[in-house]
């Protein structure tokens, strides 16, 4: 009897195992994340960590996750990635550009593991890359700025003139000038991804130069906070946040922000890897893919502008509107993209110029 019971149980287990529902490995898959800065409560790394948590929740019971924060982008990265693997991780996400070569080296050394590197350009048999089209959100922020500015000047606090940052500045400018052809954008480079002191000072400088729409491509909340302070003196001074929804740092003055959403992407690729269906990843996802989104609009944004933004957002998602639809004119007057065409991904990837409407000059190489 006892034996019969157990064989029935075994049979049952066998059936269960054969059914697709139970096909997942009983031992949870371990997924590691390497972060370039402390998680904190807003910013680039914070958004990745939110993504990690969402993925963990979506795949509850099937995955465990771990992370190492503040890993320098020099020689240390390779060791951390490697030790994640030897410590049991099946999949590792490295979330900063500077981890590219380290990730590639470890990927070659561990062909049965899977690696995903954010914002880089090297791929492999077991190494995928991913990034998001942040410029789509920037364009929409620019449209709002163009509708709401009184001084026709926007200020932009930026970190380093790499393509991703230039795409943001140029998309913001294109968006702003699509509704306010007089508008100009002034840029201050702070040469750091995270330096609240310098970011704040740059924002104040831009404000004193007359800019009333301020945004940033840096990691702290300093710019949004500086604008919130100055909003008391100038009621038409507003900010747009980046990476995270920073409205709690600028409840009156932060109109919206380009937020990064990695959770769905993480869930999707981890699922693919676990199911054995992964075929390589080279994702550059935008609003369509749910990888970026505008933060909820501030009550200060008038209803017609809201309607316009919602409409444009739909057009971007439908592929009818591209922030770099021709004609795109460079700062020096040269036509970059003719009317009727849109900028290609390759052209976007090599962006090293300002478009017309940016009033500053790019630091010369």
């Amino acid at each position, binding site marked *: 009897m006892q034996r019969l019971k157990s064989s029935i149980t075994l049979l049952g287990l066998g059936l269960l195992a054969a059914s697709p529902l139970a096909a997942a490995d009983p031992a949870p898959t371990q997924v*590691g994340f390497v972060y370039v800065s*402390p998680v904190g409560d807003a910013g680039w790394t914070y958004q990745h960590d939110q993504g990690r948590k969402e993925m963990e929740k979506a795949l509850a019971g099937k995955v465990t996750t*771990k*992370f*190492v*924060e*503040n*890993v*320098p*982008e*020099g*020689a*240390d990265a*390779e*060791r*951390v990635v*490697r*030790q*994640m693997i*030897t*410590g049991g991780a099946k999949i590792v996400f490295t979330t900063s*550009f*500077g981890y590219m*070569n380290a990730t590639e080296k470890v990927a070659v050394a561990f062909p049965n593991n899977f690696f995903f590197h954010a914002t880089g*350009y090297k791929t492999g048999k077991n190494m995928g890359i991913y990034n998001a089209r942040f410029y789509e959100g920037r364009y929409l922020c620019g449209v709002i700025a163009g509708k709401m500015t009184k001084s026709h000047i926007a200020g932009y606090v930026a970190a*380093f*003139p*790499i*393509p991703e940052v230039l795409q943001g500045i140029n998309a913001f400018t294109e968006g702003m000038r699509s509704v306010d052809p007089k508008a100009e954008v002034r840029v201050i480079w702070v*040469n750091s991804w995270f330096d609240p002191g310098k970011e704040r000072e740059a924002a104040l400088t831009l404000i004193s130069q007359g800019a009333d729409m301020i945004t940033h491509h840096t990691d702290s909340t300093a710019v949004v906070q500086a604008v919130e302070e100055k909003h008391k003196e100038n009621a038409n001074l507003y900010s747009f946040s980046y990476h995270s929804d920073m409205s709690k740092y600028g409840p009156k003055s932060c109109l919206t922000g380009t937020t990064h959403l990695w959770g769905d992407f993480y869930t999707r690729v981890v699922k693919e890897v676990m199911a054995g269906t992964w075929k390589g990843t080279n994702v550059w996802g935008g609003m369509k893919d749910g990888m970026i989104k505008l933060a909820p609009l501030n009550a200060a944004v008038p209803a017609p502008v809201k309607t316009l933004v919602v409409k444009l957002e739909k057009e971007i998602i439908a592929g009818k509107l591209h922030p770099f639809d021709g004609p795109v004119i460079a700062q020096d007057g040269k036509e970059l993209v003719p009317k009727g065409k849109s900028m290609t991904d390759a052209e976007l*990837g*090599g*962006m*090293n110029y300002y478009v017309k409407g940016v009033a500053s000059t790019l*630091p*010369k*190489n």
Partner: protein
Amino acid sequence: MWLRIEPRPEPSRLMRYLSPLLAVALMLICGMVLFKVLGKSPVEGFKVFFLQPMADRYSVAELFLKATPLMLCAVGLSVGFRGNVWNIGAEGQLLVGALAGGGLALHFPNSQSPFLLPAMFMAGALGGMLWAAIPAWLRTRFNANEILTSLMLVYVAELMVSWLVHGPWKDPDGFNFPQTRMFQSKAILPVLVEGTRVNAALVVALGALVVGWIFMNRSFLGYQMKVSGQAERAGRYAGFSARRTVWLGMLIGGCCAGLAGVSEVAGPIGQITEHISPGYGFAAMIVAFVGRLEPVGIFFASLLMALLYMGGEQAQQYLGLPYSISKVFQGLLLFFLLGSDVFIHFRLRLDRGRK
């Protein structure tokens, strides 16, 4: 009843060498208490933090890899520190060394010469010395405080690296990202143990420790520096040049830091980026003092420092503790060391019966 601190008539020589060990022991005890308070098992915490980074061949090799630049910078700094020359700018000298050595590698992308690597080390040493020569000159010529000038030059060096990798030295095939090309194979340091990253730079660092020991303990120049450092006037009466002490202290520190820079770019990194050093030049100051400004001590202190970095990584992965845990341990170590040192030179006295 009063507590009074008074100088000891004769600081114990034995305690001078025992105090780092005492500091390590106190740090460990404090750390275990900390683990307990954070709700982790102290034994488990100790294992993960201090034993796991030495658990296998790869990890031990990583320990030596991480310790190499610390060793190099610290031994160079210790020469100056003994002579009361306060070079705070090893980080900048390291960066300029990396630029000089790395620049050579980029300039000869097709060279097959076996002399390329030695030449890179030469260039790195010269670069570091050049950067250290500026504060030395300002000090000897204008009596400008080298603590300030050498520190400020760190920021200049960082900006120089940033400018080069964003500008003239940017990899033309690198999609505009701030980095140079990868170095060619003849410009990469050979690995010492297959399957690990520990490379020939360790040999250079060990060599520097030996040379440093000979210089400090067996050469007349080293003796002069020690005398000038411990008793400046005595040095002057003996006819030892204070200027020479400054120059030597700065240049030797710069030379070693420059070598450390090359060991990083030609070693585990293999190119120049903005992230050559996570602050080795500054951490090396702690290493130099924990090592009692002695090469043998520096050898062990740099390994300990590397262990603290790596233990922090492990603690994040296995205990879910934040990265600041390694900073806490570094702080504890330095605190207890300085604390022990106070009691080597001073003692507490109970004053009874006096108001």
